[in-house]
């Protein structure tokens, strides 16, 4: 790949999805764009870059940027966090709600494992006030291809054996003749999967009681992280909670959000923000 091609693709990724691609990640660009490049019959990524330069195509550029985002995800990636959300955060949020309704958003859900893990855990509750709650689960990703796969809920031999116990596999999945496993229709219908770019205006998604945005921010440049956190903040109800991936922090990224005192590992609106909202 020529230097100019790298620079053009890196600029496109930064603009569209905030991704900070270093020259050391050239191999990653080649791997992630191989399928698109083949489909469009380009001889190389240099050809693809040249074509985009001479004939700009915003839709194709958005697709390329989405294809470049990290997709790796596993079921129950952080079991402890899901336990805290289900046994502590959500019941607290429900107690504070006067509608009996909770809206949850998995932002940057890739192929859906995180949202399905949460839905599985919720469906397994025996005694919890959450059983009576009206829970809306929205899952989004910038990649239409990832969201399409998430919606289909088909997972391969290796995917279903990482993070999932055999009991959960039997309870929630059905083996297909292809050898893949499909998650139950009930769970698939519990989640609204949508394609959405974090940098799009707040608009149609509305506000949420709880947002999970795991392993999304670290791939971005710091400026874009700040912008993305501001967008997430726009989507959070005044008492809402934001959860990030392991070892992620908002320190230096937002003055509006601070670590929650009540729920370990969660971020909430700072006192100043809450006071302003209440005024």
């Amino acid at each position, binding site marked *: 790949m020529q230097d100019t091609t790298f620079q053009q693709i890196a600029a496109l990724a930064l603009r569209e999805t905030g991704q900070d691609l270093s020259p050391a990640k050239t191999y990653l660009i080649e791997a992630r764009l191989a399928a698109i490049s083949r489909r469009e019959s380009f001889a190389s990524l240099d050809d693809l870059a040249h074509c985009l330069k001479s004939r700009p195509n915003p839709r194709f550029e958005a697709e390329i940027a989405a294809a470049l985002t990290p997709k790796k995800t*596993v079921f129950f990636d952080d079991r402890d966090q899901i336990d805290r959300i289900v046994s502590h955060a959500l019941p607290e949020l429900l107690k504070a709600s006067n509608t009996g309704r909770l809206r949850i958003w998995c932002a940057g859900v890739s192929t859906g494992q995180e949202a399905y893990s949460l839905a599985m855990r919720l469906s397994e509750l025996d005694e919890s006030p959450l059983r009576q709650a009206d829970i809306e689960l929205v899952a989004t990703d910038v990649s239409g291809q990832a969201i399409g796969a998430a919606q289909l809920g088909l997972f391969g*031999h*290796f995917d279903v*054996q*990482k*993070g999932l*116990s*055999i*009991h959960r*596999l*039997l309870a929630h999945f*059905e*083996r297909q003749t292809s*050898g893949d496993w499909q998650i139950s229709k009930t769970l698939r219908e519990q989640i609204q999967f949508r394609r959405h770019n974090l940098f799009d205006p707040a608009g149609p998604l509305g506000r949420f009681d709880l947002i999970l945005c795991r392993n999304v921010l670290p791939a971005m440049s710091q400026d874009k992280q700040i912008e993305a956190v501001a967008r997430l903040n726009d989507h959070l109800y005044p008492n809402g909670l934001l959860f990030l991936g392991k070892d992620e922090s908002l320190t230096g990224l937002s003055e509006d959000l601070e670590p929650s005192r009540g729920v370990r590992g969660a971020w909430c609106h700072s006192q100043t923000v809450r006071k302003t909202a209440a005024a």
Partner: protein
Amino acid sequence: MRTQPDMKHCLIVDDSRVVRTVAHRIITDLSFTVSEAGDGASALKQCQSQMPDVILLDWNMPVMNGMDFLVSLRRSDGGKAPVVILCTNEKDSDHISEAIRAGADEYIMKPFDADIVRSKFDQLGLV
């Protein structure tokens, strides 16, 4: 064989030497001492002299298959203690359910890799 008393012990039962070698390497990396058996009968003998903490168990083997071993193990003295993970080519829900009913704690469908073994050991609280 157990070399360090504070390390947990895993017995790998599989008639394929290749599978035993691959699993041996993966489980040693998880800080277990590892021993091997090529069929259910010799695995039972090993359990009688030293009960392992974990057993990675193939289903289809000569002499004594994995299910017969599992049933005998669970009926034997101290045989309810080890965590048993079936590790087999059988992939349909009926086989999985049968293994769980017979006393298996987890189930790995072949082929497997280090991530799968690590994930299962982690879920079982073994690492």
